[in-house]
């Protein structure tokens, strides 16, 4: 039996690895697509961010008081152009704001300086109004540059004049220090989306070859040729399952390589501010801890076998590749949905969650990446997965022995 499985497995792998079309579609295209997609996305996003940073903000100032005019004269702003404009032009300026030709309008109350000087605690504070367009990135940036930069500095200047020392106005200083495990912090960064991606890559990798390996062989009549040999049907089924597992796994690794290759360009995906500040040094070391890799590998292999069994089941049942494609679509959707669901939710999930096939497996991967996995989670998930796998394999086995399924009889 084992020798038979090995013979079938070898032939199945030869089928995939000597077929240029399959090698390209299963191993090269995923890596290339992901690298290109993330690379281009990364470059575009970086360019966009840089463009926003470099953009010279255009601001129109209405009723600028003398103190403000003096302030900006002494403190020229590098990233913004301020233009003093008459109050009567406000409607026109709003129009420019609306079309994005102007980034913000800064309107001072009339008699701003007088109110400022005569200020007593009961009287109304002088006001400044910022008009901006929330639909325009430049305008949103203009607002934050004004609020957090220019106006803050200007206010500090006013307060210094009023009190002699602006630090009177702060009663205490706050500071913080992160005490989180740097490994966990680093893990949380990739842990939040990597399991979802890996899950989808694994399924897609198995699907690409799996539908053809069983439904395709049935359709073309090459399966029947094998069935008239003395080889047990189970050996054919297991040989195909194992080869599909190998293909799906390697295909997802190829995709991962593509992702890693795109990392230098796709900083938006990989950078985690917390991890960078606190865990960067640890992150470099934690990735190569053997236990960590082993856990991740084990979880991925279990998940791969689940997916391959699911794909094979659909593929055996279908009479041809087209039909298999139709049946597999809802299964693929479900796999994606269960994966996406794991990215929501905060805090430690309850233990029973790991008893849900697929969802539990992806969740376990997430826990493992952030160093939160416990032996109970691993044991429960592995147990449930193996039972689920055994059921799938039993059904596949039954189908391989059914003349109705195998010969459409």
């Amino acid at each position, binding site marked *: 039996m084992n020798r038979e499985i090995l013979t079938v497995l070898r032939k199945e792998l030869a089928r995939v690895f000597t077929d240029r079309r399959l090698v390209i579609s299963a191993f090269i295209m995923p890596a290339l697509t992901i690298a290109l997609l993330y690379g281009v996305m990364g470059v575009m996003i970086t360019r966009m961010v840089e463009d926003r940073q470099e953009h010279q903000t255009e601001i129109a100032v209405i009723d600028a008081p003398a103190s403000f005019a003096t302030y900006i004269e002494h403190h020229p702003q590098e990233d913004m152009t301020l233009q003093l404009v008459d109050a009567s032009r406000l409607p026109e300026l709003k129009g420019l704001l609306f079309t994005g030709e102007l980034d913000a309008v800064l309107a001072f109350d009339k008699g701003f300086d007088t109110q400022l000087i005569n200020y007593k605690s009961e009287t109304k504070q002088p006001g400044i109004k910022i008009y901006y367009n929330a639909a325009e990135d430049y305008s949103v940036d203009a607002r934050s540059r004004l609020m957090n930069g220019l106006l803050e500095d200007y206010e500090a200047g006013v307060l210094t004049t009023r009190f002699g020392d602006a630090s009177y106005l702060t009663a205490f200083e706050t500071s913080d220090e992160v005490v989180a495990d740097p490994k966990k912090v680093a893990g949380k960064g990739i842990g939040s989306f990597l399991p979802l991606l890996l899950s989808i890559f694994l399924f897609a990798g198995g699907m690409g070859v799996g539908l053809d390996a069983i439904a395709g062989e049935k359709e073309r*009549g090459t399966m029947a040729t094998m069935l008239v040999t003395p080889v047990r049907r189970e050996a054919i089924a297991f040989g195909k399952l194992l080869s599909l597992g190998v293909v799906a796994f390697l295909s997802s690794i190829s995709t991962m390589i593509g992702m890693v290759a795109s990392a230098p360009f796709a900083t938006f995906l990989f950078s985690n501010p917390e991890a960078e500040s606190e865990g960067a040094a640890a992150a470099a070391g934690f990735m190569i801890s053997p236990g960590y890799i082993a856990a991740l590998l084990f979880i991925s292999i279990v998940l791969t076998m689940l997916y391959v069994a699911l794909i094979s089941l659909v593929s055996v049942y279908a009479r041809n590749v087209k039909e298999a494609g139709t049946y597999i679509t809802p299964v693929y959707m479900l796999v994606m949905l269960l994966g996406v669901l794991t990215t929501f939710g905060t805090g430690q999930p309850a233990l029973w969650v790991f008893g849900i096939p697929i969802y539990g497996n992806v969740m376990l991967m997430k826990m493992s990446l952030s160093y939160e996995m416990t032996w109970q989670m691993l044991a429960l998930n592995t147990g449930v997965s193996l039972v689920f796998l055994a059921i799938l394999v039993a059904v596949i086995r039954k189908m391989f022995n059914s003349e109705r399924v195998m010969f459409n009889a």
Partner: protein
Amino acid sequence: MIEVNGLVKIYKLTKRQMRQRKEKDKVKIAVDGITFEARPGEIFGLLGPNGAGKTTTLRCVSTLLSPSEGDIRVCGFDTAAQGVEVRKRIAFLTNELKLDGHFTPRYTIRYFGSLYNMAPEEIEARAASLFKTFGIEGFQDTKIDDLSTGMKQKLSIAVSLIHDPEVVIFDEPTNGLDIITARTVTDYLMSLKAEGKTIIVSTHIMSVAEKLCDRFAVILGGRIVAQGTLEDVLKAAGSQTQDQVPDTILDLEDAFFRFYQRQELEDQASGVIS
């Protein structure tokens, strides 16, 4: 030795199959109580039109389908209970069994040899002799997809015979072959017969059957209507005719049509509209 005893095969049709085949009944009786025996050193022919039940019978003999009733023994092994033992001893070839076009003949025959648990040297020797017989030597390393139809068919035959089986079952062996390839195949079947193999072929080409087979079974509507040597079949066709003109039955084809007409008359009498 093949012993088929009271074989009945009933297909249960799904709703979709009923719709596709425009059948009203939920079950289709493909084979309705067939009994025959094929012996070593002879070629046994199953004759009948399309849909008569020839292929179903042969699929049952080769263990791909299990009988609904009755039993089949191949070399003394029961096809339903001892499928693996039966498959070790048979070659089954039909048009529906295909080889993966991606591989070369050399790889394919090695693979199938190993599925029969043959030693590598044994596979090489046997493959070399089969490739020589069927003229495949020059194409051993060409992808099967790139071979001509005739060459593919010859390769299929060679592959099915890699394990030197005692029993050879060929469903329509010369269908779709050119005259030269067909001759290669029939000649090879004769040489297998001389080696003492048990051979069953199914065909609807009566001239082929007449030249090739030692004994025949004529199947119509899932039943055997005549069985025996050429002489037996011709006699059977003659003796039961109402007009009693045996002179008109000169060959198997005449006999076959006589059986066919008789069957149609019977069907009409029993109210079956064909």
